[in-house]
């Protein structure tokens, strides 16, 4: 978590860029390992990969403090890791183990962590939006200078929840940063086939919410926009909306044969791979010697190996505990 406490990027720009790069590489390699483990049937259920979208998680989380809250979706491994949930706890959750961050009850789609104020992991599209507004309402009523970052996809903009929530957040001027990850597809349906108005920032703005559209493949641009938006939200001027233009390189889920996308389109977006973009930029600026990148990759690989080993060795939650956590455990009962 230490690296998450918003080092001002101006000082030590190159160290900070390396942090952002490391975060994106961690997410990428973690998920690549998830693919292998899924194929080996070690991870089951639905698995929605974030590969290609890493700049959004890394950039936005870098603008938050540990006191801020995060509400996420079912495609949240990247959010969870960038927020500081230990990769071992995330992997153990996907293995359905007791040491998982949701004690094996959530799986890939429902990662939770009280320590980092990570409120899921919501598999209902748009379902987290009102909850984020409520968290922000609590902060506002209790006088806490805290921001709630709420992630959702472009698909959620077609849900009623989006409209009800933006109206309420704007009406009550609540401290929410709405982060719309526009990866152009709601499951298998392209945005122009699902949304009458595809300029999503415009739709947020129609509720009086200040909205920007950002290149979601450029982690530095995401971070800049997120810092500015978080500062504005924290100053009490009400919610902000960021439309982060991004792309998932993999299918919607591991079950998805991905027949609805043009191969050329995917290839085009791959040229804007957020990791390649940042490494290229750092190389151009003379900030990334080859051995630094190799060391970074080796350190990440070791971290993921350790996470998998941790998950592997972790105990299963006893079946006798099946019905725990349905209601609060009363003392003496």
């Amino acid at each position, binding site marked *: 978590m230490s690296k998450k406490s918003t080092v001002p990027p101006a000082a030590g720009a190159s160290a900070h860029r390396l942090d952002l790069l490391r975060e994106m590489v961690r997410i990428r390699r973690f998920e690549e390992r998830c693919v292998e483990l899924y194929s080996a049937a070690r991870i089951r259920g639905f698995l929605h990969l974030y590969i290609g979208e890493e700049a959004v998680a890394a950039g936005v989380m870098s603008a938050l403090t540990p006191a801020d809250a995060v509400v996420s979706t079912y495609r949240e491994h990247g959010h969870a890791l960038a927020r500081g949930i230990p990769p071992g706890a995330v992997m153990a959750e996907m293995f359905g183990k007791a040491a998982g961050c949701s004690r094996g009850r959530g799986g890939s789609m429902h990662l939770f962590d009280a320590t980092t104020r990570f409120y899921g992991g919501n598999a209902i599209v748009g379902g987290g939006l*009102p909850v984020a507004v409520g968290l922000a*309402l609590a902060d506002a009523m209790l006088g806490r200078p805290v921001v709630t970052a709420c992630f959702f996809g472009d698909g959620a903009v077609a849900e009623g929840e989006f409209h009800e929530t933006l*109206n309420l957040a704007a009406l009550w001027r609540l401290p929410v940063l709405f982060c719309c990850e526009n990866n152009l597809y709601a499951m298998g349906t392209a945005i122009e086939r699902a949304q009458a108005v595809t300029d999503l920032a415009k739709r947020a703005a129609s509720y009086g919410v200040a909205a920007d559209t950002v290149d979601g493949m450029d982690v530095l641009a995401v971070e800049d926009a997120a810092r500015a938006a978080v500062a504005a939200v924290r100053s009490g001027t009400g919610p902000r909306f960021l439309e982060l233009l991004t792309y998932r390189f993999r299918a919607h889920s591991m079950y998805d044969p991905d027949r609805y996308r043009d191969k050329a389109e995917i290839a085009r977006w791959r040229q804007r791979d957020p990791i390649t973009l940042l490494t290229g930029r750092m190389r151009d600026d003379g900030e990334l010697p080859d051995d630094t990148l190799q060391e970074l990759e080796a350190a990440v690989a070791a971290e993921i190996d350790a996470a998998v080993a941790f998950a592997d060795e972790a105990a299963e939650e006893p079946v006798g505990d099946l019905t725990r956590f349905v209601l609060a455990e009363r003392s003496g009962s």
Partner: protein
Amino acid sequence: MTTMTYREAMREAIRQAMRADDRVFLMGEDVGRYGGSFGVSLGLLEEFGPERIRDTPLSESAFVGAGIGAALGGLRPIVEIMTVNFSLLALDQILNNAATLRHMSGGQFGVPLVIRMTTGGGRQLAAQHSHSLEGWYAHIPGLRVIAPATVADARGMLAAALDDPDPVLIFEHGGLYNVSGEVPDGDGRADLDRAVVRRPGRDVTVVAYGGTVGTALTAAQDLAHDGVDAEVIDLRTLRPLDDATVIGSVARTHRAVVVDEGWRSGSFAAEVSARIMEQAFYELDAPVGRVCTAEVPIPYARHLEEAALPQPSDVRTAVHEVVGHG
């Protein structure tokens, strides 16, 4: 002892909770300026201000979800939904978030939220304002579902609900708000885990809750004239269900009739009936009887609505049937 209406008892419980705990606040449609669609929150805006008596847009899903988030964030929200019919617009938030977050998070996040809503027919409001869907909610693990039937319980059960660390849904039958009754001094906090015997009797157990308790008690009076001594049980809490009180009573009376304003198919009465069968089959001298709402959307016309809803005469007939059996 003080005499007040069911509406006033609800208001008193909210007022006392808000005075005692700064984290408690009320939100919903028309709860502030208007004073509540059923007048429950009248005067509270003046006392507590618009931050804590918070009018919302007509956005059930957003304001119920906001209640969930606020509860996660450390507040103790009371959310008012006008009727159970409208709660369906927030069903995703209630079921997929409020009821599941504790379990999905492995016990890390609880949702201490109270959702109040009216239920039931009898006021000629037609289908979209008259249904009784509390049985559906009682199906869902992670929720507590309560239905205060008396004025004392209106206050005492709401007070207890606000102490509960889990989401509590309170179903207030629309026909009860004007009913007057006595409430004990003090906070009169009710035990949310226990059903109560409202009228002791020897010959048959009539199980009711919420709006049907009055129906059952009226029927019991009529039955007394017929020489049948009916015991009336008020379930009070639909989830978790207090089987023990029901089974204990059936073990004494050996006959049971369940009264429920839900439709018969898949009704809450079906659940109660099944539990009696599972746990007290050999105590029974007759099959369990059920009095439910006719399988129609509730009609507007008074005579049709009355014909659709459980009436004391229907309970009386059903009791005679099980008492006359064998």
